[in-house]
């Protein structure tokens, strides 16, 4: 989206120009005040005015020249880089497929970029071979050094390279970087960390890594959205990570929410028994998240059924909504009567969720919904039931809400 070179130079240049301009203007304002009170003569003001004009003109010329030059230089530089990178992708693929020898170090910028992209894209046998090449060129050490650089942009570049390279030995460095003073770097390190973790083969190293990663996220109080994102990036390390969040007795609420959402999104079936613990949590958002997770996973353990039914009367609206959605996982005979009642809920969203759950229960649910449309005592329930039935029938392609 943005070019990342030449921007700091431009900012510095603008800082200088603006400071000079501001300085002269300030003097001018003061002199004008002096003029108004008769303390200052017109020639002083005129002189300052001229100085202002000259300084602004100079600044303008400098900036314009910079912008034009930047345009030309950046364009050529980018073309060259693109060409280099394309060429090197071919070279690396030759190494993989034609058994060519990798070229000797040092590797130019385009070559490294190409190698990382290839590493990013391939897994399996070829993926492992690419990882070996990455290792062979000592890129892990190079990026590990970059991660400790004083400049933010250098750290970020190194972190992103590591995110693509996924070198297991870099994991501790990345986890340590989650404590970086810059928020941007912390978030990037978290994401690179989880991608790297996913490349660590299952075993003790991965278990320890997962625990360390989660701990770093919590200690450094990364935003909940970021924690959730990290979990979603976990690939097959995700169950471990989610487990770290959910199975501790003293986990903070934010972690629990992230863990529950991730369990649902990732459809981690193995966690359904653990989720039962959260259905009567004090925090309504956690209760709702648990129901949401059950629904996403698509399975409700029998022990959780009473909680779902009870939650349909929860004082908090969004808990009822998610309970109504989860209710489609109840046994049909249990579900139908409670959903019938929920159709009469004062909240529009709860009524809607209840109706849709009935549709999703299959024939029995639809029948009940049709009856509700005609005979439910609550007028709004009748309307909602009819509406949802019509919606369900009208969907000719099963592709709702696709982007």
């Amino acid at each position: 989206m943005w070019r990342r070179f030449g921007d700091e130079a431009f900012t510095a240049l603008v800082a200088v120009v603006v400071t000079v301009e501001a300085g002269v203007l300030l003097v001018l304002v003061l002199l004008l005040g002096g003029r108004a009170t008769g303390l200052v003569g017109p020639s002083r003001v005129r002189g300052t005015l001229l100085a202002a004009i000259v300084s602004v003109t100079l600044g303008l010329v400098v900036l314009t020249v910079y912008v034009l030059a930047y345009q030309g230089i950046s364009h050529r530089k980018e073309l060259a880089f693109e060409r280099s990178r394309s060429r090197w992708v071919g070279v690396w693929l030759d190494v993989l497929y034609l058994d060519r020898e990798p070229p000797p170090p040092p590797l130019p910028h385009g070559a490294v970029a190409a190698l990382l992209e290839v590493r990013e894209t391939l897994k399996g046998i070829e993926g492992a071979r690419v990882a070996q090449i990455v290792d062979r060129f000592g890129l892990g050490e190079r990026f590990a050094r970059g991660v400790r650089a004083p400049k933010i942009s250098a750290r970020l570049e190194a972190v992103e390279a590591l995110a693509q390279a996924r070198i297991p030995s870099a994991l501790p460095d990345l986890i340590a970087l989650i404590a970086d003073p810059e928020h941007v770097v912390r978030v990037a390190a978290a994401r690179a960390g989880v991608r790297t973790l996913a490349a660590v083969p299952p075993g003790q190293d991965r278990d320890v890594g997962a625990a360390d990663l989660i701990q770093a996220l919590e200690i450094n109080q990364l935003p909940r959205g970021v924690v959730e994102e990290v979990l979603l990036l976990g690939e097959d390390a995700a169950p471990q990570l989610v487990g770290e969040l959910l199975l501790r007795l003293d986990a903070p609420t934010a972690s629990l929410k992230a863990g529950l959402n991730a369990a649902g999104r990732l459809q981690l079936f193995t966690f359904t028994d653990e989720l039962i613990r959260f259905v009567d949590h004090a925090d309504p958002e956690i209760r709702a998240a648990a129901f949401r997770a059950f629904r996403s996973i698509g399975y409700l353990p029998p022990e959780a059924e009473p909680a779902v039914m009870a939650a349909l009367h929860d004082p908090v609206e969004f808990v009822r909504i998610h309970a109504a959605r989860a209710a489609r996982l109840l046994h049909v005979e249990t579900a139908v009567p409670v959903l019938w009642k929920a159709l009469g809920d004062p909240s529009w969203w709860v009524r809607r969720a209840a109706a849709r759950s009935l549709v999703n229960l299959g024939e029995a649910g639809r029948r009940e919904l049709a009856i509700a449309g005609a005979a439910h005592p609550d007028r709004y329930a009748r309307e909602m039931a009819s509406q949802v039935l019509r919606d369900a029938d009208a969907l000719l392609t099963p592709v709702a809400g696709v982007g």
Partner: protein
Amino acid sequence: MSDILVIEDDPVIGAILDRVLSHAGHAVEVVRMLSAGREVLELRAVDLILLDLNLPDGSGLEFLRVIRQDMHLQTPVMVLSGMRQEDHIVRGLQLGADDYVTKPFSPLELVARVDRWTRV
């Protein structure tokens, strides 16, 4: 020896797919935009389409619908998508895709699947 159309905007992934599939003996054409893909399909029949779902000039799923419902093409389609996009994969299959490949992918596996769809 089959004729494969790859619709993928990422130049690196496109190059990799080109190489992997050519190495396996297929004729490969890579285009970077849906509009270009449509042009190719209007001019000739291909044996297999590899369709990325995240393209810059529109939705891959929408294009799939266009292929199947508007252009009435029966060509096998494999959709390419990121690891965790199960929703999209399912919708793709519902819209008429025949198979899917998630990124990152294993070239051996990809070739094996492609062969399955291009076997006469």
